[in-house]
């Protein structure tokens, strides 16, 4: 039972962190629970489908279907998170500058929520398919330990939800003024970390083999296995043996996000006067 609890908890832990962050990011947006709930349900449904076709998925692309699938959905999440940041850079300023724009921006608030709903769906899909496979195996084996294992799995799921709520309430303790900057950084690092993970999957599929030398090995200082290592792995993409390509992609995502945010931020009134002259 404990084994089942640990297996399920380990899988839902990452999804719990991500959903907690998304809840905090959208705390001021109406109808957010509808979007996030939709993302969750879509993710769970997708996880069951992926689990059911796990064998077929593996056989695609000369046996590298799983790796490429993971890289693709991580890539999708990176694009969605970056889109959200860029959107907020434009409309966050509007909300601060012009009170009349607030109502409109909130009404429009549903737009970046599509992006974040997809992020939630992808996080749940990725981790959930392994939980589904594990629990299906337990149910299919039909021995006496089944109910205890399922009970352990349910407890693991509850613990994952606790991680989600702890992340959310932890972030909500940040004063509203600082929350925007904090979540912008969080989402940028989350995206960069996911991009680096996608690189690792592409390398395993032999699709991206350049710059694959390991730059450092910090596994003796902070192992990716430890709870702190896993948390940092999800939040900022920490990995104890990064390759040169992973580091390059990680930095590129951060720099690109800030360039895109700069470009889309509407000019402040004083800047507009300068531009008119």
């Amino acid at each position, binding site marked *: 039972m404990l*084994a089942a609890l640990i*297996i399920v908890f380990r899988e839902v832990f990452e999804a719990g962190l991500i959903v907690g962050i998304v809840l905090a990011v959208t705390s001021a947006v109406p109808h957010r629970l509808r979007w996030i709930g939709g993302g969750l349900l879509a993710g769970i449904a997708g996880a069951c489908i992926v*689990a059911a076709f*796990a*064998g077929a998925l*593996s*056989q695609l692309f000369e*046996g590298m279907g*799983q*790796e490429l699938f993971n890289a693709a959905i991580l890539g999708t999440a990176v694009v969605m998170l970056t889109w959200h940041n860029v959107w907020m850079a434009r409309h966050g300023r509007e909300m601060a500058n012009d009170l009349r724009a607030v109502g409109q921006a909130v009404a429009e608030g549903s737009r970046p929520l599509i992006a974040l709903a997809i992020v939630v769906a992808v996080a749940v899909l990725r981790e959930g*398919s*392994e939980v589904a*496979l*594990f629990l*299906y*195996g337990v149910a*299919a*084996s039909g021995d006496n330990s089944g109910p205890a294992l399922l009970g352990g799995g349910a407890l693991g799921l509850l613990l994952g939800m606790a991680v989600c709520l702890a992340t959310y309430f932890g972030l909500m303790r940040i004063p509203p003024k600082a929350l925007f900057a904090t979540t912008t950084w969080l989402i940028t690092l989350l995206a960069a970390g996911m991009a680096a993970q996608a690189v*690792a999957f592409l*390398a*395993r*599929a*032999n699709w991206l083999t350049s710059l*694959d030398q390991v730059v450092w090995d910090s596994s003796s200082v902070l*192992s*990716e*296995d430890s709870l702190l290592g896993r948390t940092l792995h999800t939040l900022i993409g920490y990995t104890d*043996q990064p390759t040169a390509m992973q580091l390059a992609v990680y930095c590129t995502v951060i720099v690109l996000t800030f360039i895109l945010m700069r470009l889309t931020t509407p000019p402040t009134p004083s800047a507009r006067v300068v531009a008119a002259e």
Partner: protein
Amino acid sequence: MLTVSLRKLTLAVVSNAVLTLVPVHAEDSEIQFAYADGQFEPKEAAAPADKPFAIRVKNMEAKAMEFESKALKVEKVVAAKSEAVLKVRAMKPGRYEFYDEFNEKARGIVNVQ
């Protein structure tokens, strides 16, 4: 007539170029593990150091397993009654442990030397 021979010539040149361009790379060595009755067989296998290799996992059981090794930086779900290949990057000599993530009692070692 001329066009036909031209086409043939182009074809010959192109196919020649392709043949010479594609590097003749040596096949990565591959080690195999079978998974049955909650155990890996064999429990240990040797792989060459400092060059990439592949691990082929045959899951004989009626349920899925997940071959995982934090040390080798690989993980992959292997569906019931099927097999999968994992590509491992060049590793330093050493003993690297792996396990079934769904059943951590099942463990084995890749001895890189």
